[in-house]
């Protein structure tokens, strides 16, 4: 019965990216997640709908919130959760992703959550295993659960996404969060502004149906949501920017720049934050404007929904 329900509910076997989902898939996930918000706030946070299921977390890149969020989500649903420690695994001994996948597949997991530094790694994995694959971030390509939790946070505060003007600002070039959010927010009817210095703006990004700005004040004008991204210095081999100081001056979110957005504009950030580089530290902590903590909280609910819906 459960598997029959699943077949009707979600069109995809794997969650590799927002690009592959339909609007109905997205609404199904978001509605399911809403049910878990209250559960996560209650005293007994554990249910058993995934009892007997095995979830493997395969994180090739360091992660605090996403990995712990997926781990908690699985445990709260009653699944057996195993997080692979890449440092001590055969991958360090030169095993390829496909061989790792085959090995894990032989253990009959029901779901694999993967984060990898290479774009498309989850696609490759999904072709080689029998279970569902959830993408927890692949290179610069997609981070679907982050976009879904962002959407849930916005809906929680603004009731809808339809008709909102949303600015995504900062290191767009290296950001999978930006890409997933562009697809998702566009599908749900928002107008998306992209704000970045030219060196961090991906080629032809406007073809994804967004407005492009290199001037932050113009890009924030009348926005309902200001989504800040982390400057991914670890992915920058050569000089993209002159200095953090100059970046903050032109692209850091400060009260002065935020004034160009709507008065009730909300500030979001997928974390981890570089305070004083992409965002003013007081703004980040301003409980009237910043919903950064709420994002983390709703993240668990969204991942519970995804695990439930994609787990057979």
């Amino acid at each position, binding site marked *: 019965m459960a598997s029959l329900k699943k077949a009707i509910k979600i069109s995809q076997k794997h969650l590799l990216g927002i690009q592959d989902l339909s609007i109905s898939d997205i609404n199904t996930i978001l509605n399911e997640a809403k049910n878990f918000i209250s559960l996560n706030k209650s005293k007994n946070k554990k249910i058993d709908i995934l009892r007997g299921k095995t979830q493997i977390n395969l994180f090739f890149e360091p992660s605090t919130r996403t990995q712990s969020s997926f781990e908690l989500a699985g445990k709260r649903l009653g699944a057996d959760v195993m997080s692979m420690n890449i440092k001590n695994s055969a991958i360090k001994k030169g095993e390829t*992703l496909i061989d790792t996948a085959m090995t894990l597949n032989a253990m009959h997991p029901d779901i694999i959550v993967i984060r990898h530094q290479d*774009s*498309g790694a989850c696609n490759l994995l999904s072709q080689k295993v029998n279970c569902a694959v959830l993408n927890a971030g692949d*290179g610069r390509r997609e981070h679907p659960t982050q976009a879904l939790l962002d959407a849930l946070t916005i809906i929680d505060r603004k009731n809808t996404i339809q008709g909102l003007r949303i600015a995504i600002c900062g290191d767009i070039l290296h950001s999978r969060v930006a890409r997933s959010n562009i697809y998702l927010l566009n599908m749900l009817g928002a107008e998306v502004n992209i704000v970045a210095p030219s060196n961090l703006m991906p*080629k*032809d990004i406007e*073809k*994804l149906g967004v407005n492009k700005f290199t001037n932050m004040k113009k890009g924030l004008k009348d926005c309902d949501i200001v989504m800040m991204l982390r400057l991914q210095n670890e992915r920058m081999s050569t000089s993209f920017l002159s200095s953090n100081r100059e970046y903050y001056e032109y692209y850091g979110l400060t009260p002065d720049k935020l004034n160009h957005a709507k008065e009730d504009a909300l500030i979001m950030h997928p974390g981890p934050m570089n305070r004083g580089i992409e965002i003013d530290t007081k703004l980040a902590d301003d409980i009237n404007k910043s919903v950064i903590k709420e994002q983390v909280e709703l993240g668990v609910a969204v991942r519970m929904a995804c695990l439930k819906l994609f787990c057979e």
Partner: protein
Amino acid sequence: MMKKQYFLNAHIIDPKNLIDEIGGLIIDENGKIEAVGKKVNKNNIPSREKYIDLKSKYLFPGIVDMRVFVGEPGYEYKENFRTLSNAALSGGVTSAVTMPNTSPVIDNVSIVDFLKRRGRDKSKINIYPTASLTKNLEGKNMTEFGLLQNKGIIGFTDGIKTIQNTRLMSRIMRSAFDVGSLVMQHAEDYELAENGTVNDGIISTKLGLQGITDLAEKIIIDRDLSLLEDFNCRYHISQISSAKSIELINKRKNEVDFTTGVSINNLSLNENDIGDFRTFLKLSPPLRTEDDRVELIKGINKNLIDVIVSDHKPEDEESKRLTFTQAATGASGIETLLPLSLELFHNGSVKLSKIIELLTSNPAKILKINKGNLSIGNDADFCIVDIYKPWIVKKEKLISKSKNTSIENKKLQGKVLNTFIKGVELFKI
């Protein structure tokens, strides 16, 4: 000594001798061409002789493929001379220019002796080895162009690598000029192309891959053509991929002497074919936009491109079963070079005689070899082709040792029926 052979009623295309007609071919007892063309018919051959009626099938000079990677020495598990020859023959290729990117690199006289011997003993097709421009492909010290050439090296290239240093490039051109060597450049500015795997554009943005801008190619070509104004050696751009390069070549064609090649992949495919991270389509130069592809075809028709190559780069399964970023670059393609080129004829993009010119007489002319033609007295290297025969490319049916074709499952029209070298039939379908 072999028996004299007579082929009649073929549609013969021999661009060098301006033949494009129904006619025959006579091969003498030494495997040389005795007569060719419309004057060879049933009425003027001895009546007692047996002949083969080709029933209007096409007959082309053997193809000269100017860019071929063979795994010998060092990567025999990817391709050796024997497997390469068999793959080549099945595609009508009778002469191949091999790249120096082996292990060890072809950069000194002693390794050339080995290579020539292996090529002679194991290869059924004519092998024309190149040597590297710089020692160990490091882009620092020149190799001995003169001495290597005397040993039988046909030209010089760093293969998949580009000379980045402008001063070194100018010196290479001067030395090449002195001894009359052919320099072939793979044009890519490393700084601009750093870590890139696909064309820089909407596809790289969507797939989240580092892009390679078309400027990386144009800047090197522009630089080299500027240097060439002062040091004019025999210079060939190995492959171009973009409309920007065509535009530049169009501007400079009348000012400096140089020639240009293009991979059949860039003429037949575009970046959209990469789809969901298909690593067999990770190529260098990368597949670019449909507009770029169309401009390359126009470039052929405007005589801005001289040669079509297979860019045959065999890679084993293990090198391709990785994420797109980690996967090896290149596709196997020597056996599909002609059939895939014929697609340009079937879809009305390029005239058949033009395609054959870019596959036979033009490369031979650049290389200064007497191949790729059906001139009387020459070795009878040729292929017989049913240009309308439909077939589907299947990985497992490829003859090459490596199966990394860029056109798996593609429907093609045109298949080589027989391939001859020096009058001996070495391939039959």
